[in-house]
């Protein structure tokens, strides 16, 4: 299906990401101080809602895109997965060797890392096909 027939989800995704960041800033101080475990769990997982909605919008947009755009997304996702795997693999080795101190909190950086590398890869692949912002 042609992309032009569908609303561009980028604005909605950006809005959802802003909601995510806002929730993180607003809720995180309370997460640290709350003693009730169910409430702490709820506060911790609440930001996942806008993040999940954003991922759903992106996935829906990819499914609706045409064959060339899907190919660009597929190449970009492969590159992003490779970059993320390499970075986390190296970080894991450095951590095991005692060079780098990593904790469970650092797992939160995996999704931003894959998102940034995906955006960069998608831009690069789209340029290859002559279409910036494919």
């Amino acid at each position, binding site marked *: 299906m*042609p992309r*032009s027939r569908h609303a561009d989800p980028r604005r909605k995704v950006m809005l959802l990401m802003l909601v995510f960041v806002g929730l993180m800033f607003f809720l995180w101080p309370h997460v640290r101080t709350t003693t009730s475990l169910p409430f702490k769990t709820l506060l911790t997982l609440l930001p996942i809602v806008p993040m999940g909605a954003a991922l759903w919008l992106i996935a829906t947009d990819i499914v609706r895109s*045409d*064959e*060339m*755009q899907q190919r660009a997304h597929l190449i970009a996702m492969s590159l992003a997965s490779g970059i993320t795997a390499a970075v986390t693999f190296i970080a894991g080795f450095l951590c095991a060797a005692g060079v780098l101190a990593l904790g469970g909190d650092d797992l939160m950086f995996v999704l931003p890392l894959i998102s940034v590398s995906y955006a960069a890869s998608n831009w690069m692949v789209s340029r290859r096909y002559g*279409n910036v912002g494919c």
Partner: protein
Amino acid sequence: MKNRLRELRDKRAWSQGDLAEQLEVSRQTVNAIETGRYDPSLPLAFRIARLFRMTIESIFEPAKE
């Protein structure tokens, strides 16, 4: 792969958007095919051929090695 898509589109005075609409692909995809940056799948090549009432090989030509 070389193709005559732009020439055929120009003959009909269609914009890339018009052609994209009829082929149910994005304008960017039409542009990429015309400039030879993207080779369409066989189903899309058939849709293009049917739209112009021509054979695939009269529109697309493999690049010389």
